C-alpha cells in the first residue's frame, strides 16, 4: 500500500515536507511501546503509534521502518518534524483512534507481521 493510500484512507495530514507518497509500505506495526515495535516489525513497515517524541524517529532509523502514522490526534512538535524532514522520514497524522486506524488499513489489505494472518487471509486479504 502506498503512503498516499494510507493518507487517503485515514483522511490523514502529511506533516513533513517533500515526502514521497508513492513509497510503499508492506506491513504495519501498531504500539505506543517502542520495544514492542522493535520486536514486531519488518523493514519498510509503517509504524502506527500515539507516541510522538524523538524516540519514535530513532525507532524508525533503527528498524528500517518507512514512515510513521500518528493516531488519535497526536501531533509531534516542530523540532521533531524538523528532524524527520532532515532524516527524510514521512510523518502522517490522523484523528482516528489506533484501533479504527488499524482496522481501516487492514481492511484495505495492509497486514501486520504475524505469519498466520497471511495464511488465514490468503493473498486477497493480505496484499
Amino acid at each position, binding site marked *: 500500500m502506498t503512503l498516499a493510500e494510507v493518507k487517503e484512507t485515514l483522511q490523514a495530514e502529511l506533516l513533513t515536507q517533500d515526502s514521497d507518497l508513492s513509497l510503499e509500505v508492506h506491513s504495519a506495526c501498531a504500539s505506543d*511501546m*517502542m520495544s*514492542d515495535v*522493535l*520486536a514486531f516489525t519488518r*523493514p519498510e513497515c509503517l509504524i502506527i503509534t500515539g507516541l510522538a517524541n524523538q*524516540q519514535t524517529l530513532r525507532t524508525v532509523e*533503527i*528498524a*528500517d521502518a518507512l514512515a510513521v502514522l500518528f493516531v488519535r490526534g497526536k501531533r509531534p512538535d516542530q523540532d521533531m518534524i524538523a528532524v524527520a524532514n532532515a532524516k527524510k522520514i514521512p510523518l502522517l497524522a490522523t484523528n482516528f483512534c489506533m484501533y479504527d486506524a488499524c482496522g481501516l488499513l487492514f481492511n484495505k489489505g495492509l497486514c501486520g507481521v504475524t505469519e498466520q494472518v497471511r495464511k488465514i487471509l490468503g493473498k486477497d486479504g493480505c496484499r
Partner: protein
Amino acid sequence: MAADNTFIQEYSIKGWDFTRAGEASCEIKNILKQIGVSQDVIRRVAIASYEAEMNVVMYARQGTMRCEIDTTKIKITIEDEGPGIADIDQAMQEGFSTATPEMREMGFGAGMGLPNIKRNSDGCEVTSVVGKGTKVAMSFNL
C-alpha cells in the same frame, strides 16, 4: 583496521540524556552499512545495541558501548555504572519491567528490551553487580 584486522570503536552513553539517546547505535549502524555488512545483520545489530543503549540511558548513570568487528563476527559490549540487576533471569523475561510511569510515557517499559537483544543476537551474556553496574555482551556472526 588494526594490524590484527580488528576494527574497534568506543562510544560513551550518558544516563537520562534523551537527545543523544540512540546515537551510538545509529553510528554503528552507519559503519556496518559502509563496510557492506548484510542488511539482515545490520538490522539485528542495530536493534540489539539500541535496546542496550536505551537501558543505560534509562537506568544507569553512564556507560560505554564498544564495537569490535573482525572478519568472522561483530561484538558489541555495553557496560554501565548504575544500580545493576538483582535477578537477571527475571529481567530477561518478556514483559518484566521496572520502568517508571515517566519512562512509560516516553514509550519504554514493554519489558521487551533484553528479550529483543537475545532474539536478535547470535549470543549474549548479561552480567551485573548490584550497586555497581551491568554489562551486556553480544555477538553476531558474519
